[in-house]
């Protein structure tokens, strides 16, 4: 599968492990990534607060470059949630709002560019891995299944919402990353906070709010029995990992829940070395948790014999489907 790749500013340094692990597993899942030459910042959640049209034009430049540089693929993928959202939002809103399309293209014309909305299909990296490459293909590549590792899949917010083109199964209760982790042999824990917010830029402009949210996520993951949290966005990783230390200082607590990227876990399962995957660069060391992989023999999940209900028993529970 071939796709145009928009790495985004975070992947240059802060989320270097995300990029390294992605590049490491790329061949294994035969994902050919063609980075957009001279891409610029997508404005994250800040630029749009100052100038709306200019923000769309900023993103528009990336879309126009992708459109011009694309060879035999119309898929444009990004690893970071904010980058993915801004690319998808600009493309979608230029499609819906003719006035915006005209204005943005007028601005792009000043740089000799033009973008025809809809010419690029904007997809998040996880969406490609789960739905295009597929769980079976990933499972087939697993060399070292991650048995014994309990993982909390954290989707964050901007990938599953507002989901302009309906790629994701559910705004509130997505399951694709959970299935991916299962394909890697890990055990995804049932965790209701998987799409709650990590605080975003509140860590800078309203730390108390952010620390409260971060603690709820970390505490929730721990309660759910997870050995570590896996995410798909540099800002979430930063907030949950780096700011977990700050949060501990703030609340005088001592949470130690490591936070990695799903591509790093895939790398582990594909037998890559920790160094290649940038493991060790997280603030809360993941080594102790990763040591649990294949520590004991995988306990076979004993099937509880469906005993016959007796009166006074608990009331039957409706299933999820």
């Amino acid at each position, binding site marked *: 599968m071939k796709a145009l790749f928009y790495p985004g500013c975070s992947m240059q340094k802060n989320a270097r492990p995300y990029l390294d692990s992605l590049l490491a597993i790329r061949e294994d899942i035969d994902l050919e990534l063609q980075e957009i030459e001279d891409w610029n910042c997508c404005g994250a959640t800040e630029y749009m607060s100052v100038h709306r049209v200019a923000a769309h034009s900023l993103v528009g430049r990336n879309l126009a470059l992708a459109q011009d540089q694309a060879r035999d693929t119309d898929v444009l993928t990004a690893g970071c949630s904010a980058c993915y959202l801004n690319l998808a939002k600009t493309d979608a809103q230029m499609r819906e709002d003719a006035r915006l399309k005209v204005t943005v293209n007028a601005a792009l014309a000043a740089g000799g560019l033009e973008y025809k909305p809809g010419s690029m299909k904007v997809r998040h990296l996880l969406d490609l891995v789960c739905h295009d490459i597929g769980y079976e293909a990933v499972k087939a590549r697993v060399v070292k299944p991650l048995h014994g590792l309990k993982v909390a899949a954290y989707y964050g917010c901007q990938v599953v919402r507002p989901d302009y083109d309906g790629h994701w199964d559910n705004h509130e209760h997505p399951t694709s990353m959970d299935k991916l982790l299962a394909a890697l042999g890990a055990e995804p824990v049932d965790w209701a906070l998987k799409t709650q917010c990590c605080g975003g830029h509140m860590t800078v402009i309203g730390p108390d709010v952010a620390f409260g949210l971060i603690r709820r996520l970390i505490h929730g993951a721990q309660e759910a029995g997870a050995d570590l949290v896996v995410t798909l966005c540099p800002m979430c990783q930063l907030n949950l990992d780096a700011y977990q230390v700050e949060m501990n200082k703030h609340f005088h607590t001592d949470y130690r829940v490591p936070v990695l990227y799903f591509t790093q876990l895939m790398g582990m399962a594909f037998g890559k070395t920790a160094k290649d995957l940038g493991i060790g660069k997280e603030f809360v060391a993941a080594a102790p948790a990763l040591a649990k992989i294949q520590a004991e023999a995988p306990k076979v999940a004993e099937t509880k014999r469906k005993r016959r209900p007796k009166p006074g028993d608990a*009331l039957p*529970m409706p299933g999820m489907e």
Partner: protein
Amino acid sequence: MAKQNKPERDGQERIGVYVCHCGTNIAGVVDVESVAKFAAEDLKDRGVVLARDYTFMCSVAGQELIEQDIHEQQLTRVVVAACSPHLHEKTFRGVCERSGVNPYLSEMASIREHVAWVHTDKAAATAKAKAIVSGTVERVLKNDPLEAIKVPIDAQTLVVGGGIAGIQAALEVAEAGYEVVLVEREASLGGHMAQFDKTFPTLDCAACILTPKMAAAGSHPKIHLFTWSEVEKVEGYVGNYTVTVKKKPRYVDEDICTGCGICVEKCPILVVDDKFEAGIGYRKAIYWPFAQAVPNLPVLDTETCTYYVGGKGGCKACEKFCPTVPNSIKFDQKAERVTLRVGNIILATGWDLFDARRIPQYGYGRLANVFTNLELERMCNAAGPTGGKVVMRDGQSAPKRVAIIHCVGSRDRNYNRHCSAICCMQSLKLAHLVKERTGAEVYNFYIDIRTPGKEYDEFYQRVLDDGVHFVRGKVAEVTDIPFDPAEASRNGSGALYVQVEDTLAGLQRRVPVDMVVLSAGLEPRRDSSEVGKTFGIACSTSGWFIEKHAKMDPIATMTEGVFIAGCAAGPKDIPASVSQGSAAAARVLNYIRQGELALEPVRASVLAEQCSGCRICNGLCPFNAISFIEERKVTEINAALCQGCGTCVAACPAGAIQGTGFSNEQLFAQIEGLLRDFSREPEVV
């Protein structure tokens, strides 16, 4: 019938054109005087001898105006330019009939719905109105005097759906002495109402007021009950429907079984009953839906009975212990098909509950102590799985704090846009019952309290007296994870937090409760579009059946002879469903009493001498009205089966097929009239 003015062919026709003001509805946009003047002058050469404009043509005075003109001016044809023919075509045909003109020599020109109400440019609207009048005049010239087709009405009526609306309709028709076939898909009559414990606003016990009617319907000599059955096919038309009913196998012989219940008692298999007990109760593999089931017959569920599961033919406890001779358990019983002739059909197919799983953030299906309103109804019901005690999912502990969330899945563009009409009242009733049974603190989360019916708001006052807390805000989410350890310590483990913005207090609250009840809204039946196609009626975009007229004829449909009652046409409370059941029955009795029905004389017929026997038309008729006569090598159309769609008329290359009411001549003339350019002729000032 009065002497008919002899309709001369072209040339001597004397047409009267009447342009209606309809108050200001038409006159407000269309220059009615100018249209009348246009008809009188520009269409004089086409036979218009008189043209008037009048405030309300459909009024008694308006109608008398026409009658007077017909007598004084010997009019032979009438054109009324006013509203849609669907509203007053019958009125003006009646006027003609009373005054000696064949009713089918009158035509309506729709200049209200198709002109005045939809255009703003007065000049353009007036010009369009003139063109439509010209087209209608040309068309009426080509009308033939016709007689309505009389169709006998079969006196037997089919009622589909054994809920309260269907039972009411069936009883009313049967009480009037006519045969009724009542078909119910489930194993017993009762519908959703049978699941309820109490009803609002009177807190009557649902079973106490429903079971007498069910018993009456079950034992009524004139009502032929088909439970555990479905209507598979409907053919024919009003007065003469042929209906195929498929009786699903009960694996119990209805004639021998006495309903003693030993088989149910002895059956070893206990499974979750997600139909009647809404998923929080159990039933055996062979079971009654509920104690007061009508008919009092068990039914065997092949998906869970060990005899069928794995096909090994094991167990057979029910057969062993069945006291009847010969044994009423029939493992090899097959589905039967029964064909019936009925004259009219009443659809009372009811509603489905919104599936609360579609809102994951409310936690239904994931959080143990989140229930739906139907589950709570079953808990409150003394015959229910908990014997009337309101308990949490563990089956024992009574909740101390209960949240009831209104509008779950309703009034929401992401789910159902409609308001389910009764879900506020049902939430108030449940709040009262929970308060009464457990003394718990009860919180109702609402957007608006809607209490439209009689004694409804008084009931709301009563629930306020009970001390129920009302929080105005649409609940954002229900979670079992405390925000921080402090909140956890305050409320203990197992608490559910209802996160909502209390819009009156203007702050975000997280209300800790032990149990959440989701008051889910009403939805059309999931298969309503297939059922609609089976009976030839249409569904609205949201899925409810479409009435003939939303305000003026809510229980009829556009298909003659098919009526709708109860929630099948839209969410409503029990009193409204009952009265619609009676209304549909009254309409059907009206048809039966008339014994016959006058149908539009729109039929196709073949002129044998012109028919070349090419048989192009033979395959076009879904009603098999077209048949080829081998000996004479011509085609014939059976007038009784022909529905008048005209497809064969259009297809015949030789023009050998005539279509009354919409003949080629009429339509060609109307086209010419509509497009005639009057600008070249000098405008008579």
